[in-house]
């Protein structure tokens, strides 16, 4: 079963790439319209110097935004769980932040932040933090009511109840939110970069895509695109692994639901 889970998508991917390469060669499609996978791979190796630098920039912003989203989302969720009035008065604004398209507010943020890295970080954070906030809030409030009674019976303090009951109950929800936010923070970072359009040496993968577009270096555009996808997949897999390691002893999602 584990075998099949790895093998089946790998076979599909290889078939897809083979058909792509064959089509490009057979119909002699020029590389500035559609480069074949072999050419893209060659470009990736040849331009690795610039591309890896850009990858590092994008990755840095993505991971920092994800960390900030996880930390602030968790903190805000804990505050919401402690005070109903705070939750009722602030949650709608979190929703507003979530439903406003980031492309629309990114220019404003770039003007206000007055620092490219900081503004990219804020944009990516806005996109990424909501799933963590809403999931963790849900998790903190879904502790087993009998266990809540048990803690009351033993006169547990608010802190003990939070630390020993509500936070562990919320962990699976938090991790599910984190997996969604991992992808979203990458998207947020890329979108913000497109809007900011920074040049120079400290430019991310989105800038490489735009630059390649201007210069009609389509193979390099594809190479940058492939790097973005690979980054997204790597983040997702890392967070899935983290979730599995933390929940494997006790949660249905990680124990195969037997």
């Amino acid at each position, binding site marked *: 079963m584990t075998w099949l889970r790895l093998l089946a998508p790998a076979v599909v991917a290889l078939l897809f790439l083979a058909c792509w390469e064959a089509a490009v060669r057979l119909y002699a499609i020029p590389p500035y319209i559609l480069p074949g996978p072999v050419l893209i791979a060659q470009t990736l190796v040849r331009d690795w110097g610039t591309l890896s630098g850009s990858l590092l920039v994008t990755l840095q912003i993505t991971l920092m935004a994800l960390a900030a989203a996880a930390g602030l989302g968790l903190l805000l969720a804990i505050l919401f769980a402690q005070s109903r009035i705070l939750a009722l008065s602030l949650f709608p604004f979190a929703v507003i932040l979530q439903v406003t398209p980031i492309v629309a507010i990114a220019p404003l943020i770039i003007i206000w932040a007055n620092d490219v890295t900081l503004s990219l970080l804020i944009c990516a954070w806005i996109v990424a933090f909501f799933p963590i906030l809403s999931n963790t809030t849900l998790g903190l409030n879904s502790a*087993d009511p*009998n*266990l809540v*009674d*048990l*803690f*009351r*019976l*033993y*006169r*547990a303090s608010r802190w*003990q109840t939070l630390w*020993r*009951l509500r936070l*562990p109950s919320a*962990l699976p929800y938090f991790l599910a939110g984190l997996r969604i936010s991992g992808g979203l923070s990458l998207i947020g970072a890329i979108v913000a970069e497109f809007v900011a359009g920074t040049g120079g040496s400290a430019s991310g993968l989105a800038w490489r895509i735009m630059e390649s577009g201007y210069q009609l270096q389509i193979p390099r555009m594809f190479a940058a695109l492939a790097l973005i996808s690979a980054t997204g997949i790597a983040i997702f897999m890392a967070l899935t692994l983290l979730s599995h390691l933390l929940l494997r*002893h*006790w*949660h249905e999602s990680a*124990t195969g639901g037997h």
Partner: protein
Amino acid sequence: MSLVALRGVAKRYATGTLALEGVSLDIARGDFVALLGPSGCGKSTLLRLLAGLADPTAGSLSWQGTARPEIGFVFQEPTLMPWATALRNVALPLELAGLRRRDAEARAADWMARVGLAGFEHSYPRALSGGMRMRVSIARALVTRPPLLLMDEPFAALDEITRFRLNDDLLRLWEAERFTAVFVTHSVFESVFLARRILVMAPRPGRIVAALDITAPSPRDGAFRTSGEYAAQCRTVSQALADAMAEAA
């Protein structure tokens, strides 16, 4: 000397449902009391009032020595923390009371052994059977050696063989520790086997309609369960329950 005295206790929920009305009873120190009745007769509500998890809307509870003593509570479900090992679950009440983790776990390990779970300290709840999880729950309720143990249909979801064994073990623990026990059940057979006193309850509104003393040998064991005496007691209690239901209908 009664541990707690209830006088004219009533409980009306915010929805308007009258769950209990005019409940007066005394629970003697060291007694084993069963609350027997059909669903919806307020048995669980009465237990929650005793535990202090809810307050009566009328009447009073007076505790010997004025304050509610420390209480162990066993829920219908094992109600364990799935993220913690069996040992950590049993140690929880001690740790909440401020005991150091090592001391709490040492005492929890003793209680794991006393409920027959030595060797399962580091198992997670999901790796244990239903009966074993209930044993963990009982160990957790008793680990603080509370003077009062409240149980809310704890064995209702278990198969009969497991239930019999847990009934035997519960009586053995009660005879050794002599805590006061209040046990909610809807099984006549279980109440007669366990209790020294059975309070029969009727619904709409929940109230106590009969109190029966079970005069049977101590210790009770498997032989008691098949004796003619047991059958006779079960017949008496069944009749009282049937009368209560006929009166309520």
